[in-house]
């Protein structure tokens, strides 16, 4: 269970500038094994919120609880997957090297880690590209590699920051289904940041809608669609359309 309690974040102003408030007060939770999306207008502080959740940024107020323990630094139970894989996968390491790198501090023999890396790559359909460098892969494949790194890290909680924002529509659908599949089969708890309403509804058990900056929670919209979901059928479902409409109205006003 991941609980975000009255989280607020202000950035101190430099050289006499007024301090900027990114997050006013945000509270919500992600149940164990749940898939929750964070949706909000661009610039509302979604990335700030995610960095606070995984302990990269210290909140100004409030706290983040992971299984009732307060998060004060990046916990090994969380893996963060960034928006831009080309700025997050290390280009001087191969795809497999990138995965081994985040496993260095983990216990286990070299051989075990090789196996973990190989399995993660197989899970995202990149088994044949272990020895490739990230820049030799397409944007979609780079994002798969970043996901594989997060999976191999062995974290129960996946935090994703608009991971599919920069790939084409078709690749995006493939990646959405891939993520939904591994999240379900490996019982991951997922917090997924996006600015795309359809994507949020399609993937999530619940969508947390944020207000414009400084962000508060505008509403939490449950998505009561059966899994596994199908890209075409789900998007035609009454429940999908209702959720979509509600969220649209929330973001519009």
């Amino acid at each position, binding site marked *: 269970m991941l609980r975000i309690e009255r989280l607020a974040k202000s950035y101190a102003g430099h050289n006499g500038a007024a301090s900027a408030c990114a997050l006013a007060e945000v509270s919500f939770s992600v149940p164990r094994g749940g898939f929750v999306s964070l949706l909000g207008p661009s610039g509302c502080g979604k990335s700030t919120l995610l960095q606070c959740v995984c302990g990269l940024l210290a909140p100004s107020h409030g706290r983040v609880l992971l299984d009732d323990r307060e998060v004060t630094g990046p916990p090994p139970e969380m893996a*963060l997957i960034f928006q831009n894989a080309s700025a997050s996968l*290390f280009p001087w390491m191969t795809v497999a090297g990138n995965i081994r790198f*985040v496993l260095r501090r983990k216990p286990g023999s070299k051989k075990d880690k090789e196996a973990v890396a190989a399995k993660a790559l197989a899970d995202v359909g990149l088994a044949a590209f272990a020895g490739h460098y990230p820049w030799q892969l397409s944007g979609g494949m780079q994002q798969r590699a970043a996901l594989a790194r997060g999976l191999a*890290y062995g974290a129960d909680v996946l935090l994703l920051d608009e991971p599919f924002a920069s790939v084409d529509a078709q690749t995006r659908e493939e990646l959405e289904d891939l993520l939904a599949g591994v999240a379900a089969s490996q019982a991951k708890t997922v917090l997924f940041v996006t600015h795309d309403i359809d994507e949020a509804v399609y993937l999530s058990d619940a969508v947390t809608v944020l207000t414009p900056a400084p962000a508060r929670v505008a509403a939490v919209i449950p998505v009561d669609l059966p899994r596994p979901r199908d890209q075409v059928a789900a998007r035609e479902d009454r429940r999908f359309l209702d959720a979509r409409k509600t969220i649209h109205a929330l973001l519009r006003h």
Partner: protein
Amino acid sequence: MLGRCSGIVVFLALAGTWEAASRLGVVSALYFPPVTVIAATFGKLAASGLLPAQVGLTLARALAGLALAALCAVPLGLCMGVSRRFRGLLSPLVEVLRPVPPPAIIPAAMLFLGIGDGMKVFVVFFACFFPILIGAADGARAVAPGFRLTAAAYGVSRPDALLRVILPAAGPSVAAGLRTAVPMGLIVAVLSEMIGATNGIGHYILRMQRTFAIPEMYAGVAALGLAGLCCNAAAQWGLGRLTRWSGGDRPGD
């Protein structure tokens, strides 16, 4: 191909003009001995092992100074790049010392280090230190924030990240600093040998000039030129291999 051929033609034409001017008495054959004479002298001195030995001494001093400078300047520069506090601490000192032309410290260095190898290594160190420091600091400062965040999110400690993330990410800039430092190191090594030494190619060139062994002097200059060419090529090749991931053959992202 055409360009390369024309380049050789220009080179040969210039050598031919020199040869003719010297043989025909247009210029003093004492100060400008025919190119063929210089070449013959060069061949003789190279075969006897005299030139290789003198050049070797100079290269060893330059390399020792360069290696020491790299060993100190790369870690310091990386720290300056990532830490604002560290930068504030060292910047004033660097800004004062950097514009000092390295030959200007040779007299001072002779006072406390004499005219032995230590003095030359120190002067080369001084000359090479700043370009390497600036390259490392600029490189570390410009590392994409995504790389640093990724390392932090996956629990990589700060010293570990400095060595395994910041250093390789700043690699191309560090390499540029080193490429600048290599010829400077050689220049300063030769100069320090001309001012105070009993051997080395710089000392040899000056001694030949003073004893009117002019073909030998030119042979020394040619040997030095050749050594410089090899050093630059070696630096280019070696550093290019280390930073291959950032090379021109990778597609843009």
